[in-house]
């Protein structure tokens, strides 16, 4: 008999509000099931409900069966021996879910159920072999590190080691790759898939990005507004007659198509050997080594690179938010006015003051104009980003992430910029919202001749929007070329990895 984790009529409610209603499904050992859905659709609640760790104020109903045993009827103590041993979890932010005070070893020992005195020594071998298994070496050294001493990719691997520690039958993975850049993402995905197949574990893989799992998942479950609206084997998910929500998700995944781009030759912004060193000591590694680059009117420049490679620093220099320590940024002058540059931040929710109405926040950009004129300008900007004017009188908490990111763009438009810098402006959004924002940006360029600098760690995004690509690696601009050339023939090793990652997800064999 294959082992099976089944949930029947599982509902989660907060007060009278149903957040998840009557979900039904099953996960067999050795199977990787993807749960996809837009942000807020209830994917996380589903996993938490299964493992019995819903927040206090939420209530779950329905049956959860593990090999026929009712988990929902177990007491806390019995549940404790299920968690970790038979079902374990992977999370989106590995660093946030580890105790910053404890070493990786301590976390692993804890997962092994061995945090008592004297047991640590006995389990040392197991700890090391687990770390090696997930590709973390030298294992001994890494075991003694604390979470904040690891990079994102390493931390996610460590998290996987912890999840595998007690040899569970099932793993519930809640967006474990969405905080990683594309290279890491594909690495971790492959690793997860490999382990899952080696060990015959059943994995419930939660994601909002249907494209990323198309080659690894056995089955797909689509969640929308708290309901499971569709489920089928992965191969069938792309057929035209699926549920509309499924279609929406699939359409949002970025196609490698490219629209026609016309760049005018006027140079708006130029970086001449601009570099930045935050540390006072000249010896220390610079955040950004001297970089030279030109930005033309109507151009879309895609900027990629690992975390910490200096992308944001470069953006801040371009926007004039920071003074370069070497070189300079030259703004072109037209009719006596310098190029206006605006920045759109990554996190939509934190870029508006939660206490203020959107109108008040937006008025910061036009507070020098008379009230009537300011109102007109705001209305105009709202129209440009395709939002109804009523939204202005809401507070950020009452808007969705996608709406807020549009509002942030509208606010930037109020200053009539010529260059818009989007620093990871879509990475906090689900795939559908992301697609909409990217399309909006391309529209704006088309209509208003805006130049865009799009910073992203996601090669799909870069490929979708860019005319030219700039690759940063360890504080250095290592490659700057038109997109076409770049995709065909990347020069730098890192660029090669990036381009390869675009295909690697596809190269992982699906279980047959």
């Amino acid at each position: 008999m294959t082992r099976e984790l089944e949930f029947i009529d599982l509902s989660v409610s907060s007060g009278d509000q149903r957040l998840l209603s009557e979900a039904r499904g099953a996960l067999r050992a050795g199977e990787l099931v993807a749960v996809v859905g837009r942000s807020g659709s209830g994917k996380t609640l589903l996993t938490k409900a299964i493992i019995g760790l819903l927040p206090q104020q939420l209530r779950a109903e329905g049956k959860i069966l593990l090999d026929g045993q009712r988990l929902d009827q177990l007491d806390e103590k019995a549940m404790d021996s299920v968690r970790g041993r038979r079902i374990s979890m992977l999370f989106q932010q590995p660093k946030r879910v580890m105790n910053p005070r404890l070493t990786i070893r301590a976390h692993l020992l804890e997962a092994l159920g061995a945090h008592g005195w004297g047991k640590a020594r006995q389990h040392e071998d197991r700890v090391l072999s687990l770390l090696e298994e997930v590709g973390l070496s030298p294992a001994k050294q890494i075991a003694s590190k604390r979470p904040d001493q690891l990079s994102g990719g390493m931390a996610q691997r460590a998290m996987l080691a912890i999840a595998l520690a007690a040899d569970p039958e099932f793993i519930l993975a809640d967006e474990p790759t969405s905080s990683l850049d594309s290279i890491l993402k594909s690495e971790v995905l492959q690793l997860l898939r490999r382990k899952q197949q080696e060990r015959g574990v059943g994995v419930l893989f939660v994601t909002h990005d249907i494209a990323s799992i198309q080659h690894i998942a056995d089955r797909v479950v689509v969640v929308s507004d708290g309901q499971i609206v569709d489920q089928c084997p992965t191969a069938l998910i792309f057929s035209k007659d699926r549920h509309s929500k499924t279609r929406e998700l699939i359409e949002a995944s970025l196609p490698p198509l490219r629209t026609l781009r016309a760049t005018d030759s006027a140079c708006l912004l130029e970086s001449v050997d601009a570099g930045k060193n935050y540390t006072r000591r000249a010896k220390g590694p610079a955040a950004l080594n001297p970089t030279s680059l030109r930005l033309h009117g109507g151009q879309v420049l895609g900027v990629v690179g690992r975390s910490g490679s200096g992308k944001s620093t470069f953006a801040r220099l371009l926007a004039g938010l920071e003074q370069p320590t070497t070189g300079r940024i030259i703004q072109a002058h037209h009719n006596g006015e310098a190029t206006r540059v605006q920045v759109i931040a990554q996190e939509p929710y934190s870029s508006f003051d939660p206490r203020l109405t959107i109108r008040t926040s937006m008025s910061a950009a036009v507070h020098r104009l008379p009230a009537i004129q300011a109102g007109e300008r705001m209305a105009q900007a709202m129209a440009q980003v395709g939002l109804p004017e009523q939204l202005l009188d809401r507070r950020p908490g009452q808007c969705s992430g996608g709406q807020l990111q549009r509002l942030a763009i509208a606010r930037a438009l109020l200053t009539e910029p010529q260059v818009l810098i989007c620093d990871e402006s879509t990475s906090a959004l689900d795939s559908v919202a992301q697609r909409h924002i990217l399309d909006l940006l391309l529209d704006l360029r088309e209509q208003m001749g805006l130049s865009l600098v799009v910073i992203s760690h996601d090669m799909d995004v870069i490929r979708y929007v860019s005319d030219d690509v700039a690759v940063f690696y360890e504080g250095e601009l290592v490659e700057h070329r038109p997109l076409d050339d770049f995709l065909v023939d990347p020069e730098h090793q890192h660029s090669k990895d990036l381009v390869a990652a675009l295909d690697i997800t596809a190269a992982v064999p699906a279980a047959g």
Partner: protein
Amino acid sequence: MARNHSREILLSPPAFILLAVVILTIAAPWISPYDPNAQSLADRLQAPSLAHLLGTDALGRDTLSRVLHGGRFSLSVALITTLFSLLVGTALGLLSAVRGGWLDELSLRVNDLLLALPEIVIALLIIAVMGPGFSTMVLSVGVVAWTPTARLVRSMAAQALSTHHVEASKHVGASRWFILRHHVLPFVAGPVLAQAALRFGLLLVLLGSLSYLGIGVQPPQSDWGSMLAEAQPHAIRSPWGMIAPGAAIFLVSFCVTLLGNRITHVLGGQDVLATEAKAEIHD
């Protein structure tokens, strides 16, 4: 603060009690049954009776009348001190958060110093210079009392200023005043108000302790603290003299703290004591 918020705060039991106490003390000259200073040596240290609802003190003065009149002094000193420290603390806290640099450094050090110096010692220093009295009490406590507010405002304002949305506002050209008015003040106001309520309660107790030690209000004027000190020797024979002013201090301080807590609650914040806790944390 939205209208319904104010209602939620103002219609709570502690608010009612406080309002009642304030009205009673303001109306003291008209409603108190006796002249608070009228002595009747024959009727000293009486237990509560119909004639004297809270009994009489060692000079045969009516305790109820004295508690009512004493409240005028206690409450007004505490109020003025609180307002004083609120103004000074907010101004300095904002200044050091916004300006930073040496000003910030200086105010941090002054804070450190005032934290380390015992409050009563500071009060003594000022009393030594100015002699006891109303203004001395306000000043001697006020000199230290602004520091928690300043620390809170500084840390809250710094927090507000370091948010992404302030950064975003700055990018689109918001003026300093715009940021202060829309992003900083609304963020700071709630906790500061709540803290002021808490401070009021604490100051009421502290001011009482000055009077109790005999370095606060000077007879024949009296406040709750000095009434306590006067009544303490007779505590066994006539506990009412102690219980009444003690309970008054406790009640007002308690209610005002609860009120402060309610303010933060309504604003979705933490316990008012926790804002104080946060204010204590500084670098």
